[in-house]
C-alpha cells in the first residue's frame, strides 16, 4: 500500500488493520542472478537500484541477523558531502543528491533533514585547511561557506567563546548537509526493493563463497546453498572475513567506533556540529536526543563495544565545546565495527574472482554514502564497469599509489 497522509488517516479509522508487511520475510530460492551479502543500507540500496535502475530484479539480499543490524543502525545519522579530495567529492555529492529526492522516490519518510553541518576551526592554519576544502567543494559545485565567529555565535550562542582552551576561530558550513533517520533508510530501501521483486532473506548467514575456475557460482549459507551468477559484498565491518571466504585479502582492519545518545531534550541544536580541536560531532535527533560521536577506540575489534578512554575523550570534547552540557545525561552508548581502509577511503570494485564484487572500507563514512554506494555498486554489478563517480575507489590503488587519503595519515587505519 502506498504511504501517504491519506492512507494513514484512512487506516486509522480501521484500526490500522490494513497495513501489510513493509517487506516480505523471504526464504531463499535456489538461484539468483545476483546475491548481495549484507542487509544493511548499502546492500539494500544496491538491490533497490539494481531492480529500479538496471532492470535486474532476480536478486537476493542475504543478512545474517535482521536487516539494519550492523552499522546502518549504529551510526550517528549524518549526511554530508564536505570532502577535500577530487576523488571523493563527486561521489559524496551524488549521494547527497540522491538523499534529496530519496523519500519521494522510496515513498518512505526517512526524515532527511538538511539542517547544515558545521566544521569548527580553532586556528588560522586550520581555517586555511578548511578553505582549501571549501574551495574544492565549490569547484565541484557543492555548497560550502566559511562562517565567521560572530555568525557562529549568533547561531550557536551556547558554545564556549570566552574561556575555551582552543577558541573557535570560524567554521566551514555545508548547509545542504544534515541528518537522516538511519533505520528508516534501511526500511525504506527494503520496502522499495521488495516491491520490485527483490528477496530479502534475514537470519541467513553466509558461511562460504563458491568459486569454480576463478568464477563465483554461489554462496553457502546457514539456510542452504544459493547459486548466483554474481555476488556482491556489502558487509562493512566484516569485509575481511567474508572476502576471505573467496580467498581474498583486503587492505582493511576492523575497528570499533562508539556512539552516544543523550536523554531527550527540547530543541537546542539545529545543525550538525563538529569540533575541530578534538574528536567530536553532535547533532540532535527529532526525538530530542543529542547524538554524539568521536574517534575510533584505535584497536582492532569485532566486539561492537568500546572502552572508557574514548568515552571520556568524547565527553571532554563536548564539555570543552559546550559547557552547558554538564547536567545533560548520556542515555546509551554502543559501538559499531568499522571497515577501516588503509587510506581512509572506500573500495567499490570487482575482484580477482570473476563475478565477485566488493563494497568495503567505508571507515566512518558509510551511512552518508548509502544511496550512492548502492547506485555505484549496482552499476558495477550490472554493467561490469565502474560508475563514473566511483571510478577512483579501486582495490588496486594501494599498489599503484593512487591513494585517496583525506587526512594524510598513511597506511595506518586507526589514524583515519
Amino acid at each position, binding site marked *: 500500500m502506498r504511504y501517504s497522509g491519506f492512507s494513514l488517516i484512512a487506516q486509522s479509522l480501521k484500526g490500522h488493520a490494513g497495513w501489510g*508487511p513493509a517487506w516480505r520475510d523471504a526464504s531463499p530460492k535456489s538461484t539468483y542472478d545476483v546475491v548481495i551479502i549484507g542487509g544493511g543500507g548499502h546492500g539494500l540500496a544496491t538491490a533497490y537500484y539494481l531492480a529500479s535502475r538496471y532492470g535486474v530484479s532476480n536478486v537476493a539480499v542475504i543478512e545474517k541477523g535482521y536487516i539494519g543490524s550492523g552499522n546502518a543502525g549504529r551510526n550517528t545519522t549524518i549526511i554530508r558531502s564536505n570532502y577535500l579530495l577530487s576523488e571523493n567529492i563527486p561521489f559524496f555529492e551524488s549521494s547527497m543528491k540522491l538523499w534529496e529526492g530519496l523519500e519521494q522516490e522510496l515513498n*518512505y519518510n526517512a526524515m532527511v*533533514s538538511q539542517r547544515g553541518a558545521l566544521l569548527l576551526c580553532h586556528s588560522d592554519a586550520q581555517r586555511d585547511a578548511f578553505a582549501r576544502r*571549501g574551495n574544492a567543494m565549490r569547484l565541484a559545485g557543492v555548497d560550502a561557506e566559511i562562517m565567521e565567529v560572530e555568525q557562529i555565535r549568533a547561531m550557536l550562542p551556547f558554545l564556549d567563546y570566552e574561556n575555551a582552551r582552543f577558541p573557535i576561530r570560524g567554521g566551514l558550513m555545508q548547509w545542504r548537509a544534515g541528518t537522516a533517520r538511519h533505520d528508516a533508510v534501511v526500511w525504506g530501501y527494503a520496502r522499495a526493493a521488495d516491491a520490485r521483486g527483490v528477496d530479502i532473506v534475514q537470519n541467513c548467514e553466509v558461511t562460504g563463497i563458491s568459486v569454480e575456475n576463478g568464477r563465483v557460482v554461489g554462496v553457502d549459507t546457514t539456510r542452504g546453498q544459493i547459486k548466483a551468477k554474481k555476488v556482491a559484498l556489502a558487509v562493512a565491518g566484516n569485509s575481511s572475513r567474508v572476502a576471505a571466504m573467496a580467498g581474498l585479502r583486503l587492505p582493511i582492519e576492523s575497528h570499533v567506533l562508539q556512539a552516544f545518545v543523550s536523554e531527550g531534550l527540547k530543541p537546542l541544536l539545529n545543525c550538525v556540529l563538529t569540533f575541530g580541536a578534538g574528536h567530536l560531532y553532535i547533532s540532535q535527533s527529532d526525538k530530542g536526543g543529542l547524538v554524539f560521536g568521536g574517534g575510533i577506540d584505535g584497536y582492532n575489534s569485532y566486539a561492537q563495544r568500546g572502552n572508557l578512554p574514548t568515552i571520556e575523550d568524547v565527553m571532554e570534547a563536548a564539555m*570543552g565545546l559546550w559547557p*552547558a552540557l*554538564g547536567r545533560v545525561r548520556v*542515555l546509551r552508548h554502543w559501538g559499531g565495527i568499522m571497515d577501516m581502509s588503509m587510506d581512509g577511503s572506500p573500495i567499490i570494485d570487482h575482484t580477482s574472482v570473476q563475478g565477485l564484487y566488493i563494497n568495503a572500507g567505508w571507515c566512518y563514512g558509510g551511512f552518508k554514502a548509502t544511496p550512492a554506494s548502492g547506485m555505484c555498486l549496482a552499476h558495477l554489478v550490472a554493467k561490469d564497469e565502474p560508475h563514473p563517480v566511483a571510478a577512483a575507489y579501486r582495490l588496486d590503488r594501494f599498489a599503484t599509489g593512487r591513494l585517496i587519503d583525506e587526512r594524510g595519515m598513511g597506511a595506518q587505519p586507526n589514524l583515519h
Partner: protein
Amino acid sequence: MSKQPLRLPNGGLVDRARTLSFRFDGKSYDGHAGDTLASALLANGVGLMGRSFKYHRPRGLLSAGPEEPNALVELRAGARREPNTRATMVELFQNLEATSQNRWPSLRFDVLSVNGLAGPALVAGFYYKTFMWPAAFWEKLYEPLIRRAAGLGRAAEFEDPDHYEKAFAFCDVLVIGAGPAGLSAALTAGRSGARVIICDEDFQLGGRLLAERREIDGRAAADWLATTLAELASLSEVRIMPRTSVYGLYDHGIYGAVERVSDHVAVPPPHQPRQRGWRIYAKRAVLAAGALERPIVFAGNDLPGVMLAGAVRAYVNRFAVLPGRKAVIFTSGDSGWATVRDLAEVGAHVAAVVDSRSEIKPEFKSLASRVGARVFAGSVVEATRGGRALRGITVRDASGKRTALACDILAVSNGWNPTLHLTSHQNGKPVWDEEIQAFVPGVLPPGLSVAGSAAGRFTLAEALQDGARLGREAASEAGFAMAAAQPAPTTDAEASELKPIWRVKGRKGKAFVDLQNDVTDKDVELAAREGFRSVEHLKRYTTLGMATDQGKTSNLSGLALMAEQTGKAICDTGTTTFRPPYTPVAIGALAGHHRGKDFRPVRLTPTHDWSREQGAVFLETGQWLRAQYYPKFTDKDWLSTVNREVLATRGGVGICDVSTLGKIDLQGTDAAEFLERVYINAWKTLPIGKARYGLMLREDGFVMDDGTTSRLGENHFLMTTTTINATKVMQHLEFCHQVLWPHLDVRMVSVSEQWAQVAVAGPRSREVLRGIVDAKHDISNEAFPYLAAREISVGGGIPARLFRISFSGELAYELAVPADYGQAMMRALMAAGQAFGITPYGLDAMSVMRIEKGHVIGSELNGQTTVRDLGLAKMMSSKKDFIGRLMAKREALVQSDRPTLVGFKPIDKGKSLSGGAHFVGIRRANKLENDEGYVTSVAYSPNLQHWIGLGFLKNGPARIGERIRAVDLVRNSEVEVEICSPVFFDHEGTRLHG
C-alpha cells in the same frame, strides 16, 4: 501550607525532626530528611508529576527507584537546571526546586494532550508514512513541529557552574549494590582483609531491606542491617560508597561509576565537586543489584495511582507515606500479597485483591479476610477510571463478569526482572528462565559473579546465602585466604510463586507497554503486522525501550506481546540487550575537569615568562603556547609588528624561541646506521661537529617529518623534529629500533623538554653570541662555519649546544641550554644584543622568513606530499635502504603531473593572497576538472614589499613564469598570480654563509 496529609504518623526511615521545604511547579511543600522528591510529593498528596512523551498523558509515580518512567522533572533552575531527573532518585534537600516538564502551559492543563485525540493516527512509525509532500516542507514545517513537540526537559542554557572530577580506585572485590546480597558479599570479602568497595545508587544502604518488613535471624531486618553496616565501617580495607551508581562494565574488570557527591544539597560546598566519575579497577566483582518489578499491560494502566506493588511497600515502609487511601492490589504472584499485609499494617484500606491465578493460598485468603479485602481470584483488572488521578477500576473475572471498584491506588505486581544489566555490557546475552519467567544472566564477563535477585534468586534467604558465598569466592580468587564459612543468617518465610500475565486484553482505552514513550499494545501488534518482528526492529520501529528508563519496565512486556503475536515462546522471540550506562550519566561527570582552559594541558616553553615580559601575544600550536608576535606601542597594527620583526632580523639580529621542536638524543655504535635507515639521505658521512638537514618518510613513501640532526660524537647524534610530530617521530624511531632492527646498537631518548633552544638570526648574530659564549670557544666563520654543531659553554661554564643552522636564511644559530637556564639565556642575549638592536620575533615573523626562503612546514608536510612534491627528490639516496624507499616508487607517486611545490606572487603587487585557495587557469571555468593545485602558505614579504605564497601546482617546476589564478571561492577572492621559484629571497644563499 499543607502538612503532608499522606504522611504516616509513625515508622519509616525519614527524620521527622528535620523538615525540609521545597518547591514543585512554584508551589511550596514540606518533606523530611530521608525523603526522595517522589516520596515527599506523594506525602503532600501530589499524584500528578509528569506528562508522557507523545500523547502528553497525565502521569504519576510508577516506581520508587531507578526504573521510573513517568515522574521526570527539571531539577533546580538556571544554569543548574537538570532535565529528565527521576523524582524517585532525588534525595530531598532544603529549598529544592523542581519543575514539571514537557507540558504547556501547565502540568494540569497541557495543550498537547490533544495528541491523545489524534491518537488513532499517531501509531507507531506513523511519521515514516507521511510528511513527504511537498519535499521542501519537511525541514520548514513538519520537522520543526515534531521537534518542538518532542524532547522532554529543557537543558540548561548557561555554562554549568559546578565542578566535576575524575577519580580512580583499585580494589580486590567490588560489590555492586548494598542490599542484603551485596552487604553479605562485602562483609564476607571484607573479613578476609581484601580491599573491598561497595557501591549503591541509593543514599541509604540496605536495598529492598529498607522497603520490606522482614526478619533476619529472628529479629527485624533493620537490626541486621545496622550491625552489618557497623562491621563494614569498622573494616579498614572496606570502602562504602553510597550515592554511587556503577553504570558500566568495561574490559578487564574496569567499572565506570558515578558518585553524586553534592546532589543532595542545593549548591556544592566549597571545593567539592557535584559529581565524581570513577573508574574502578577490580580484580573480582559481585553484582548484587537486585531486581525490578514488572507491570502489567492493561487499558488505562498509566493513570496516576497505578503503581508497582513493591513501590507501594517502599513508600509505606521506608518513607512512611500512604500512596492512597483506598487500595486495590492486582497481582499475578505471591509478592503482591506482601503489599496487602504492609498496607493493612499501617491502617490503609485495602478494598480488594485481584489475583490472576485461580488458586489462592489459604494464608492469603485469611490475610484478605483479616484486612477486609475482597478477593477476585482468576481475575484481572480490565480498565481504570479517572482523569488526572485514579478513581476506580473494572475487574473482570474468569467468567467475564465485570465489577467496578472505587480506589485511588492500584498496586500492580507481575514478578521481578533481575537487574542484570552489567552482565550484558560485554555482549553477554541473558537467558530465559522458564521457572521464574524472567531473563537471568547468561555467560558472565570475566571476574564477575551475580548474587541474589540479580541472578533471579529472589528470596531474602537466597540473597543472604549468595552474597556470603560469592563474597567469599571473590576474595579468595583475589588471593585472600578465608576462615571457615559461617552459616548465612536465617530469615522469616517468604512466598514467591508466580504466574505472570503480560497483558489484559481490554475493550477500549490505551494499554501502555512503554509508559514514557507511549508505546501501546496496539503498536506492538502493528509492528508485528508490518514485519518488524525482530526485537530490535520492534524497539526501533515503535521506540519501545528507547526512553530515558531504557525500557526497564517495558522491554520484557514488549517481548512477551511480540511473542504472543508471532505465536512463539518468549525465549525464541529474542532477548533484550542492555547497553551501558545502566542509568543515564551526566556528561559533566564523564568529562571531569577537562573543560574550559583545562580541556587539555597547556605546554609552556622554558622562555615563556620572558616572552610575556616582552609583551608577546601567544598562539596555540597543538598543546604549546608559542610567542606569535611582540607588539610595540609604536606598531600600527599586527602586520607592522611582523614587518618590523622581519626587517630587524634581516637587517640586524633577532631572537626566537624554538624550544618546542622535538629533540631526540641517539647514541650507540649503530646510531649512524640507524639514521641511514630512517632518513632518506646519507648520515654515515656526517662529520662530528656537523649538522645536516634530514627528511624521513613513512613506510608508504610519503613524507613524515623533517629537521636537522647533528653529530655530537662518533656514536652520538641529536635529532630535531617538527613541533607537531615530536611524539610521532619518537614513537616511530622506537618502532624502527625495537621491532624492525632490534640488533642495532642504538638507544634513544627524547630531550625535548630538557633544553631551551633559541634561534639567533641575522647578520649581527655572531657578534651577539660572542657576548655570551665563553671565550675559549671560537665561533668565527672559519672555526664555526655553516652547519657546524658543537657542545660549548656560555655565561661562564653553563653547558650549551650551538648549531649554525638557519630557518630564516640569514647568518643564524640555534643555541640550546638546559631548560632551567632558558630565561637567563634570553636576558643575556638581549643584553648582549642591545648595541645591535636585537629584536625578539615570533612565529609570524619566522613564518614570513621561511616562506621567503621556500622552507616547508606542516602546511606542506601534510601527509599527502612526497619528497618529489617538495622538490627534494635529489635528497633520496639510491645506495641504501630506508623507510619508505620502495613505496615511494609507486607509479602514482612519481607521476610528473603531481602537484609540486612552487612559489607564486600576485601580478598586481597590491593584492593580498590567501591560504587554501586553488589554482585554476586564467580562462578556465571554476570547475573541479580545472583544479590544478592549492595554496599552502602565504605571507606579506616586507623585503619584497608584496605578498608571496607557496603552493602545490600540477607539474609545477615546469611552469615557472606562467600566470594562473588563485581562486578562493569561500572567501570571494580571486588573484591572478605568477608562478615562481619557491625561494623568493637570497636565491644563492649567500647570507647564510656571512
